[in-house]
């Protein structure tokens, strides 16, 4: 693998687009070599990667280290679309998809997931020569997103930048002035690296969990319909964040949510289809949800994914159960709009058939077991073990077994310890988790992704033992909260890896369940929101808002339900 220089933001000394820093991700070694050569011929700076999670690692480690990502669609450790999503949401980089398959549906999917271009293999030099346009375009659009006068001024700068373009100094010019201006306007730059004024790169905001929580919280408070970057920014109260940062993140958030809605519709029909397949097959993970779905009675509006502002639905759910998961489960349920909701409901029914685990967790257990069944890959990591797991993991090949064998050992005791720690003590872990989150999301996830259907039972049992241990050790509310936060990180980790949709969805519900189990009422005035996950207010009577946001974050970022569901189905076709 060819590495670019080790510094952070590397100013390009040559005229743009020369020196464009490209990250190429492709599991095909032949293509990787060819693309590297081709990109070098374009005078670009190339880094190659054959694994998606490795790519995510690289991107997270060097947050401003790349200008554009080119990725193949079909990769063994992570679906290219998944990677695309991650990169778009976390790093806000333009991503180009590649494939030998040029089917319209695939291309459409790429665009839906946010790809700025879709190239068909074999790729020609001239196509690669032009990829700089996507970097340029993004820059311009980000500038345009600014609503304030400052934004207007930036645009003015951009316009003058246009004049300079022919000199090839455009980017530097624009970034210099606007970058400087932004720096003057902002007080702090906590999470993002400061690009020095002469750098040609605008510092990228990394949307950490924490930051995204604030974002979602603000969106919720305002009301999704009335939301706007300025309002969000004001509510978020993050000094160094700019309106343009918020605006572009909001755009992506909206795209993501609308895509989920579409997929939930697809999923509905899918669920109908799957009805017939059920229980006689072996109890591999994927069958869990199907089975569960079968058991869904027909009328509760269960809309984890039901996006469309369903006020009525939300209200219905509210009416159904005031935060009592069990209550909801037993109530008659409507045809779920998405597997997510289905999962929650069905976990209870599915419980008996699925795993033997510590029933002291009650509803949580159901959800957890269901989670394991839902995932196309087994839950591999104890929820709170994120930092350890990440460090333990090999980045090379998929060593699921190895990873697993490491799990149980430190697990139970560690979790117990963590849970028993005081709030203050646990906090640093949370912070670590947060800071690690971005970095380690990849590796943990990527290894998760292989659909190992037949493996789950023992592994899951281990995980659940850990979870049980953790839960039982949770005494105080504070500890619980911390634990939940940790768990969220862990869950997020799992989700981030792109573990099948069902897992992600379930994990979200799982968290909800956990919250239920912990008697954390979730208070969520979410009726206004068009977010799918918000449609289970009943499930969460009053969770601390930020925790729920974390769930959302998780949900939003981490998977593509329809996709994984389809994979699921495909495996059993």
């Amino acid at each position: 693998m060819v590495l670019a220089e080790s510094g952070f933001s590397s100013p390009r000394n040559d005229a743009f687009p020369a020196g464009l820093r490209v990250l190429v991700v492709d599991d095909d070694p032949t293509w990787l070599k060819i693309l590297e050569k081709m990109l070098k011929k374009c005078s670009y700076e190339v880094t190659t990667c054959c694994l998606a999670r490795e790519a995510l690692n690289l991107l997270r480690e060097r947050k401003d280290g790349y200008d554009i990502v080119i990725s193949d669609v079909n990769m063994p450790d992570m679906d290219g679309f998944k990677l695309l999503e991650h990169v778009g949401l976390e790093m806000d980089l333009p991503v180009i998809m590649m494939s030998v398959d040029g089917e319209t549906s695939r291309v459409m999917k790429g665009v839906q997931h946010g790809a700025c271009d879709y190239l068909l293999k074999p790729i020609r030099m001239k196509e690669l020569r032009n990829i700089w346009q996507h970097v340029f375009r993004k820059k311009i659009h980000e500038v345009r997103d600014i609503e304030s006068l400052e934004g207007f001024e930036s645009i003015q700068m951009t316009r003058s930048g246009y004049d300079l373009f022919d000199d090839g100094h455009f980017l530097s010019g624009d970034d210099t002035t606007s970058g400087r201006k932004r720096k003057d306007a902002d007080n702090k730059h906590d999470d993002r690296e400061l690009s020095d004024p002469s750098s040609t790169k605008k510092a990228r905001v990394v949307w950490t969990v924490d930051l995204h929580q604030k974002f979602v919280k603000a969106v919720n408070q305002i009301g999704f319909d009335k939301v706007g970057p300025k309002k969000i920014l004001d509510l978020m109260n993050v000094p160094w964040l700019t309106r343009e940062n918020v605006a572009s993140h909001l755009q992506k958030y909206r795209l993501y949510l609308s895509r989920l809605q579409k997929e939930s519709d697809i999923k509905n029909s899918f669920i109908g289809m799957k009805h017939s397949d059920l229980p006689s097959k072996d109890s591999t993970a994927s069958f869990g949800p199907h089975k569960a779905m079968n058991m869904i009675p027909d009328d509760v509006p269960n809309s984890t994914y039901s996006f469309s502002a369903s006020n009525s639905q939300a209200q219905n759910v509210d009416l159904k159960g005031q935060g009592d998961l069990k209550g909801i489960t037993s109530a008659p349920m409507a045809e779920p709009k998405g597997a997510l909701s289905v999962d929650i409901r069905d976990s209870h029914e599915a419980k008996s058939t699925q795993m033997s685990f510590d029933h002291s967790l009650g509803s949580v257990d159901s959800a957890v077991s269901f989670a394991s069944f839902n995932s196309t890959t087994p839950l591999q990591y104890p929820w709170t073990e994120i930092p350890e797991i990440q460090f333990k993991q090999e980045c090379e090949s998929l060593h699921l077994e190895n990873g697993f064998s490491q799990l149980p050992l430190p697990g139970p005791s560690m979790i117990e310890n963590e849970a028993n720690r005081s709030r203050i003590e646990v906090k640093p872990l949370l912070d670590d988790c947060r800071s690690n989150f971005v970095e380690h999301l990849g590796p943990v996830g990527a290894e998760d992704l292989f659909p190992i259907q037949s493996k789950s039972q023992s592994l899951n049992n281990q995980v659940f033992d850990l979870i049980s241990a953790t839960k039982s050790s949770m005494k105080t509310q504070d500890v619980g909260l911390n634990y939940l936060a940790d768990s969220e990180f862990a869950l997020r980790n799992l989700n981030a890896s792109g573990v099948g949709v069902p897992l992600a969805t379930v994990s979200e519900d799982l968290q909800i369940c956990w919250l239920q189990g912990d008697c954390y009422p979730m208070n969520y005035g979410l009726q206004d929101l068009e977010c799918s996950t918000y449609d289970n207010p009943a499930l969460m009577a009053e969770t601390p808002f930020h925790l729920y946001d974390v769930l959302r974050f998780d949900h939003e970022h981490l998977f593509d339900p329809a996709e994984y569901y389809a994979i699921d189905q495909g495996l059993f076709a």
Partner: protein
Amino acid sequence: MDVVNQLQRQFIDYSASLHREGFLDDQFTQLQKLQDDNSPDFVVEVASLFFEDCEKLINNMARALEQQQGVDFKQVDASVHQLKGSSSSIGAMRVKDVCIAFRSFCEAQNREGCLRCLQQVTHEYSLLKNKLQTLFRLQQQILAAGGSIPVVE
């Protein structure tokens, strides 16, 4: 110099025939153009990577198709798809064409059809490998004789 000329002519003719018979397409020419002083063995290296990958994928397919208890056609299809992508990287047209047919059989879950395609793909791959090795040998001979490799358009 006469030797070099002869060899070069041989090389050109052989290249042309490979293109004509559909073993290689324009992509191979592109690869040759990419080769430069920085990477003088670029084409040979790429070809080696391709052969390795090919063998691995063919083995995967064979194993998957051998499963008595039930062939995982999704897995076979995935391997075929990979092979298709790989073959497009060096311009292995005939291999790629077999892959296209192969995928239809996978979709139809037709084991017999898949096995036939597997045979075909293996055959095409071996043919191509031999021919490329001959071509590379010619290249070596030209270089050894002090000449340069002509680029065949």
